[in-house]
């Protein structure tokens, strides 16, 4: 019964040739492959070159007072890049150590906040009846500005690094909680049915389905949080800190040292972009399978 016809038709079930791309292939093939590689390289190069060119153009226009002219600004309001560079070089060691300090607050706070936010989303998904309220509570914390948060956190955690980490933690929780919740719940009903058919426990549904389904949303939240955490740390330093980019920035601006203030902003931007792109790299690795990443 099984033997005969099945074997005879077995070839039908076989599939088109699959080959290791580097092993065989005609000359034409290789050129084509090289072309593709080349294209990818060009694409990558463009990703870096374009913004850099735009950046240089921007800086040149800035230095040539283009923006000053059209917006009627004076250099004491918006210093020239050369002045900023000067301030940057003159204060390099302080700036680097402060950047490290602020980045530490941002990263630690962001990791803490994102984890907590993710847990809130887990709870809200697992026990929607009661857990959904926690989502609202976390979201509402977003409405408390840092100026109010700073003194409270300062009281609770002292003037040290702890209070800024706490500020960043609170600031980053909501984005993660809301996004992760959406990701865990925007599951295709059939995919859930499959889990139910295996009598999957709540935990297993998370492990095999919801977590993965939420990843695109989670990474979006991480990208938002990477930037939010830097702002949080910087503004958190305005009031109670004796170190860090925010402290220096606030002080510089209050005594009119705009070049040094902008040097702080430049350092913050570099650190923030670095932080952001690390998260983006991770996203590319973890989301190979997602529609947005397919080629």
């Amino acid at each position, binding site marked *: 019964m099984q033997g005969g016809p099945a074997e005879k038709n077995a070839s039908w079930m076989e599939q088109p040739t699959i080959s290791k791309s580097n092993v065989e292939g005609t000359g034409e093939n290789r050129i084509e492959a090289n072309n593709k590689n080349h294209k990818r390289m060009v694409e990558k190069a463009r990703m870096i070159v374009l913004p850099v060119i735009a950046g240089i153009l921007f800086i040149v226009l800035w230095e040539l007072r283009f923006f000053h002219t059209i917006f009627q600004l004076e250099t004491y309001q918006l210093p020239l890049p050369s002045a900023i560079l000067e301030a940057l070089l003159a204060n390099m060691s302080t700036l680097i150590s402060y950047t490290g300090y602020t980045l530490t607050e941002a990263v630690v706070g962001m990791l803490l906040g994102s984890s907590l936010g993710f847990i809130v989303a887990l709870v809200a998904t697992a026990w929607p009846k009661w857990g959904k309220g926690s989502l609202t509570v976390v979201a509402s914390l977003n409405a408390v500005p840092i100026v109010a948060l700073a003194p409270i956190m300062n009281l609770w955690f002292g003037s040290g690094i702890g209070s800024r980490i706490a500020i960043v933690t609170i600031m980053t929780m909501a984005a993660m909680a809301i996004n992760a919740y959406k990701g865990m719940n925007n599951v295709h009903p059939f995919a859930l049915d499959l889990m139910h058919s295996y009598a999957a426990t709540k935990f297993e549904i998370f492990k095999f389905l919801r977590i993965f389904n939420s990843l695109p949303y989670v990474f979006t939240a991480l990208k938002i949080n990477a930037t939010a955490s830097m702002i949080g740390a910087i503004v958190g330093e305005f009031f109670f800190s004796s170190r860090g980019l925010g402290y220096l920035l606030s002080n510089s601006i209050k005594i009119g040292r705009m070049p040094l203030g902008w040097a702080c902003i430049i350092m913050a931007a570099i650190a923030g972009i670095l932080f952001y792109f690390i998260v983006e790299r991770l996203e590319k690795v973890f989301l190979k*399978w997602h529609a947005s990443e397919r080629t």
Partner: protein
Amino acid sequence: MAVAKVFTPEIELEEVSMRFQTDKTEVLALDNVSVAIQKGEFVSLLGPSGCGKTTLLRIMADLIQPTWGEIKVAGKTAKEARLAQKYGIVFQSPVLYDWRKVKDNITLPLEMMGTKKSERESRVDHLLELVGLKKFKDKYPWQLSGGMQQRVAIARALAMEPEILLMDEPFSALDEFSRERLNEELLSIWSKVNNTVVFVTHSITEAIFLSDRIFVLSPHPGRLSSVVEVPLPRPRTADMRQSPDFYELISRIRNLFEGV
């Protein structure tokens, strides 16, 4: 009909009705359906598109609860049966997890049942062979053709050798040859594992070739219009498809349809 089998009802539906309600309108998808499926039996559901076959399957699997009526599986409630991991289901669409490669989609139920890794790997190789996708084990679902995706879903359902196998048009995306071959493979697995199979299909020949009994549903609302016993002996062989009995059954069922 498999004469040797003792009648122990495995799936019993009593006066089951299902009503879908949306804002303004409601659809009566199933109306007063009563069936009893024997343990180890192979049953097919036939019926026009939208008559409630999928709904019936979903009720059997405890994925939805009927609006009215009772359902018993192996003497227990459907929920208990589901929690005892008795079910293997092939859905009407493949329902593969995008983030899992082909092989990982197939091992999913095994992972959930705690099968050891080495065992999983040998099992997956065998299943991939069965559905002819050996070379595609490391691909992601979107890199497969529609029929290939459906075959992955079939392999996944077979992976756990479920006591109750519910299949919703599993072979509809396959060419006739693959389909016939998989029909035979399915029967061979079934005869070995001796599980209960409920099989939805639109192909009358397929239903006859595979089943002990065929349930014909009529639409609007979904009702069980008739039950046809298939008196062909087991094991079924390809040449039975050409037998007069087979043809006679085909035309009988076609007539049943037209009478609807």
